[in-house]
């Protein structure tokens, strides 16, 4: 693992990217890394295109990930994943939620065309249905945590399942904690059961 790792998390505003990035960042800080997480609020708070960055390593880090810099791109929605693909380094890993949410009042796009485009990139790609797993875990809104589990399962970040679970258990309580723990495990198991990528 290099000195510095850069991750980008793309999705639609409201999908919980910031929560995902914050949990990731907290676990990395606890591990002694320097961490910078960037995000843009404001007009894109709800329903807009949102991308969040997490960088970690040693020394001084800038808060943004620029084109070709990301080691990992976590996409919570297919269109938004494709939009942010230029951030990814050609040797990077793509982890995508197979969830399609076309913007309202836009030109119609075909889901299968998008998935074909995704495959044609020739990148190391993990595709999973996090929304489906989230429902199984107990709540459809835990899909971001399923994706966090998938990220940890992909072994592209220097964090173990236990290290992330311990942050979750401090952040959430009761039923929410239970659902999120399930979600994390489901994402993790889905990816680790597929072997190496």
């Amino acid at each position, binding site marked *: 693992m290099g000195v510095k790792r850069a991750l980008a998390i793309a999705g*639609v*505003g409201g999908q919980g990217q910031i929560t995902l*990035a*914050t949990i990731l*960042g*907290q676990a990395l*800080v606890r591990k002694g*890394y*320097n*961490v*910078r*997480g*960037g*995000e*843009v*609020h*404001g*007009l*894109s*708070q*709800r*329903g*807009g*295109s949102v991308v969040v960055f997490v960088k970690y390593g040693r*020394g*001084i*880090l*800038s*808060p*943004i990930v*620029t*084109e*070709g*810099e990301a080691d990992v791109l976590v996409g919570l929605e297919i*269109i*938004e994943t*494709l*939009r942010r*693909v*230029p*951030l*990814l*380094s*050609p040797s*990077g890993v793509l982890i995508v939620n197979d969830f399609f949410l*076309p*913007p*309202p*009042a*836009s*030109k*119609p*796009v075909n889901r299968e*065309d*998008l998935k074909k*485009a995704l495959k044609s*990139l020739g*990148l190391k790609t993990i595709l999973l249905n996090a929304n489906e797993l989230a429902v199984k875990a107990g709540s*459809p809104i835990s899909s971001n945590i399923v994706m966090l589990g998938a990220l940890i399962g992909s072994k592209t970040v220097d964090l173990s399942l236990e290290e992330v679970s311990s942050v979750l258990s401090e952040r959430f309580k009761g039923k929410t904690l239970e659902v999120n723990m399930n979600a994390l495990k489901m994402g993790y198991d889905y990816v680790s059961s597929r072997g190496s990528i």
Partner: protein
Amino acid sequence: MPKSTIEGSPGEVKLLLGNEAIARGALEAGISIATAYPGTPSTEIVETLAEVGERYGVYVEWSVNEKVALEVAIGGSMMGLRALTAMKHVGVNVASDSLMSLGYAGALGGLVIVTADDPSAHSSQNEQDNRIYGIHSYIPVFEPASPQEAKDMTRDLFDLSEKYETAVFLRTTTRLAHSRGEVKLGELVKLERKPAFHRDPERWCCLPPYDLVSHQKALDRVRRLEEDLSGFKYNWVEEGSKELAIVASGASYAYVKEAVERLNINPTIFKLSSTFPLPRKLAIQALNFERVLVVEELEPVVEDRLKVIAYEEGLKAQIFGKNLIPRVRELSTPIVASAISKIAGVPYSPPTPVRISLELPARPPVLCAGCPHRATYYAVKLAVARSRIKPVYTNDIGCYSLGFYPPFNTADVMWCMGASLGIGSGIAKFSQDPVVAFIGDSTFYHAGIPGLINAVYNNIPLLVVVMDNGITAMTGHQPHPGSGYGPAGEPRQVIKIEDLARAAGVGFVEVVDAYNINEVRDVAERAIRYVRENKRPAVVISRRPCALIELRRKRSRGEEIVPYFIDQEKCIKCGVCVDKFSCPAIVREGDRILILPDVCVGCGVCASICPAKAIRPVKSVTG
């Protein structure tokens, strides 16, 4: 009370947002007052302090606007207490009248003004560089480079403010304010100061000839700081090659560090945190290099000052800056690396990104499902069509600014807080049809009232539609004088917009339910008639709580949210719901129009506008 993100024991390392770090720094300095009007990217500073204020004896207020916020903080400083006020860059424009006098009179208790600038204008009407306000007002400007530094510097600036008896600017940018980083917490200090008014009319009354004395004092203060700040602990020099010096201020420092690492070169780096006044000794040290590159976002503030000092000191260094570094938009590591590569004479090839050939649909931000503003726009446009007028629409700053986009197109002019009324009046005085001005509740209290009084006094044919969702929504739901509660949720008196409008002498004031399309349409139509016949302003207040707040309330009460659906047998595919009303919960799939049950919040407005009566709740609501 649950622990806030900024609470913890000294020495603990936490992941904090830049804004949270500033809030923590203020607590560590033992502040007594924190004031703000919310504005991206500054809001979380006072929002975080509001959560903990009571526990630490800090008076926290959401002020009606930035001018008042600054004035309350100044008053606190005159009482010998430490005060923080935070605002977005354009908020300082609103506060600037008080600011200029503050620059002369100075502060007593430590006074830190956070100006959160927004290079790239991510959520603002411009990308003005507020370091220039520092120069203009003689108030020193400090720029932290990381969340840790933001916390430490905030704490230390209160000491500096008191030592030099001046207010100080802490200037952040979106990238610092809204980025997270590890922050090692320090000790919390309780100062136990007894508030006492420091009577000094010659200082606090900005009158001639005393103001001329204050002016000289301010200049002397700046001169003194120009000498002393060379030793400021957040300025330093990282020794490297003798040929090239790079001066990096604030957030640019991280870009410079990453860039020189990518280029694999070793220039001398001047890490600068006090940008105004520029410390003279440090400047001379940099100017002794043959070539100096200044890396700063937006305006050439440091660069220009360096050029002046070079001239005054007779130094011949070649100074580079805005000839290589763009003045528009925020910087990034590749932009900075490319600039450095040019003067360092080393090649730089940015990484080749993966490209996709497919054209993706844009995803502009939209009004939320159930947003009352959508219903108001829809209904007012119906009223306009019925009245057979072609009005100019002026609009204002808030979530409702999204009316700019199709299908509503209800923004021909959008300027700054409150300008929908002022500029709207100027247009209305000379236009054939009345002007329709849209303004939100929070913006109305902030800057709309003078424009309304002006419109009444000067007989302006203006229809003012106040889109009242009860809260400052866009910045994340901070309460205002109409919300009925204060920063910590405690009950407060409601100051009603209709009472203010009537008191201002408006002859037509009506309150409608934003969700009731027919009511809003009919009242707006009558208001338009009133404006045309009387050549005087009318006010329609379209009221409904913010849909997100309502959803949160329903969830916490355990109330069921019943989504609507479109009965495909009855649907005539006219497209009114999807194209004219344009709720994000309503989508086309193939030739069908559907409601996404996960997105629908069950407001039911679409059902009321469906000409075929094809939209119904998925089940009947009980109770």
